[in-house]
């Protein structure tokens, strides 16, 4: 097979992987800090995509429509996530694992139907601005120019999150809360407030990812149910609560999927679950996680 072809396949794997990262990083952050595995996370992502479509269709005539719609969608989704946290998630911090799973699972069901009620069952398609309609040639391979944008956003969020956790005061508090929430609470830091903002931040990233996703292909009902399982896989491969792990995990899943679909299309999805299971069995805490939290 030609090298340029492999390169373009690699780039589409990278795009897919970074899209997964955008979904999984919020999931991992929320689990790492709050210990809640949010089943509804990908549904927020889908809501972000639909909101982005709505903003875009309001400004359809303008070239900048998409660029304005994506941040607006992220903000709107985050606001909605904040409401959900205050109304519902707040009540289940201290509940058992299965109750938290069931509540967020129920949220995914409800939000999925709300999407159906608000936006209807038809697929939505965003027409990209002309500036990114033509492919870019890299090393002789034609690359969808929107993919470059997705890759940039993915890495920007990764770096932004890394900077936030490493260099800001709030980032330090969040990291401390991962290790010992009692101690952080004892220092007079309002844990519930931290939780609310961590959840909102996670949903913000999911909304951003949804906005970015909305121009990749058509926005369809039920897209969330597939990606949430893959996001779980990513988080398990990388290790819960580890940013680096989530990034590596997403890139592994993205590239494996992208190349497997070439050589063994039927087995591509199965392969991802095999990898996840293998990692879980050998290292339940993931590639970059620590056994302490297992």
């Amino acid at each position, binding site marked *: 097979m030609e090298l340029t072809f492999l390169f373009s396949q690699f780039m589409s794997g990278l795009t897919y992987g970074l899209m997964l990262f955008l979904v999984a990083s919020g999931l991992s952050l929320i689990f790492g800090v709050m210990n809640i*595995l949010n089943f509804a996370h990908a549904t927020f992502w889908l809501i972000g995509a639909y909101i982005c479509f709505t903003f875009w269709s309001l400004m359809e005539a303008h070239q900048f429509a998409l660029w304005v719609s994506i941040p607006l969608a992220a903000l709107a989704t985050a606001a909605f996530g904040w409401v959900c946290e205050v109304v519902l998630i707040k*009540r289940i911090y201290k509940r058992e694992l299965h109750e938290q799973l069931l509540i967020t699972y129920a949220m995914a069901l409800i939000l*999925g139907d709300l999407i159906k009620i608000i936006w209807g069952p038809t697929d939505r398609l965003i027409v990209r601005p002309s500036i990114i309609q033509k492919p870019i040639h890299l090393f002789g391979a034609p690359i969808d120019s929107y993919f470059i944008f997705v890759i940039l956003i993915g890495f920007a969020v990764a770096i932004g999150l890394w900077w936030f956790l490493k260099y800001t005061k709030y980032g330090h508090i969040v990291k401390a809360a991962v290790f010992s929430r009692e101690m952080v609470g004892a220092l007079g830091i309002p844990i519930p407030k931290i939780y609310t903002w961590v959840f909102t931040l996670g949903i913000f990233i999911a909304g951003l990812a949804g906005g970015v996703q909305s121009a990749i292909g058509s926005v369809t009902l039920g897209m969330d*149910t597939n990606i949430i399982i893959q996001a779980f896989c990513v988080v398990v491969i990388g290790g819960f609560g580890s940013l680096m792990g989530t990034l590596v995990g997403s890139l592994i899943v993205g590239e494996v999927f992208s190349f497997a679909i070439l050589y063994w299309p039927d*087995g591509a999805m199965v392969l991802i*679950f095999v990898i996840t*299971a293998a990692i879980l069995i050998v290292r339940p805490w993931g590639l970059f996680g620590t056994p302490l939290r297992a």
Partner: protein
Amino acid sequence: MDKKNSFLKRFRLHAGLFLVALILPLVVTEFWVHVFTEILILGLFASAFNLIFGYMGQLSFGQAAYYGIGAYTTGLLMVKLQWPLFVCLPASMITAGIGALILGYFCVKLRGIYFAILTMAFGQFVFFIIFQWYSFTGGDNGLQGINPPVWLFKANAYYYFSLAVVTIGMILLYIITESPFGYTMKAIRDNTERTEFIGINVQRYMLINFVISGMFCGLAGALWGPFNRSVAPDLCSWQNSGHPVFMAVMGGPHHFLGPMIGSVIFTFLNAFVTGFTEYWPLVSGLVMIIVVLLMPGGLFGIIKSKGYFSPRNVGDVKNE
């Protein structure tokens, strides 16, 4: 209290429900007979799931895989080889049990959230195999024409057949949970470390339990195919794995009949709600949230806390 009396007292709920189940189809329309059949099948599914959840203390989010393996075994045997239904049921239990043995071997090494995710990943693994393997399973078209034998064609007949199979299944499950093996499972649930210290091979017990649960999930699945006349890969999806979790939580995982009662509520609600709106997920989600937030311990938890009658609980340490 003499023995007979205490026996009656102990099983009055079970016997009462069985009597109701015997009489009900004679007084309702065919539609509701279908609903009752569904209740029985899903109730067996949820009860089998509860072996892992209520008795072993681990949350499996992938039991639909074994349900689906059972359903597909019966479906394939009946459509492709024309095997009689009576042979298909035990065959389904065996294939589902083998599936649970292979996948469970890995799952029982993990606990808590990791157990939940690995079972879910394996569930999706089975789902995608069935979904992609067109030549064998029919892919997303599913399998059609899984007709039960002629004498089971009528709704009532299939209902009584399901009732018989499910009752036998439930009795077997009850015997298992009340056996030394069942009590070992409860010990593992309540304190895994201590159980290990007294010389019990926890992983092996968990694996055996996983296999038994898988077998009975397979039996429930095997009843589903001929009832519905078809099977589809959706039976194995992770959404379907969520149903028994919900039923067990709603009915009460700490009572043997809890999941069955959960199935009654869930299926009734489903039949009722889908009658006038397509938004069943929305309604079931709302019910789920209300149940989890307001009814810890499920329906049986509430009954117990009000002291209407005291069903034998399955060994919640706090209550004994």
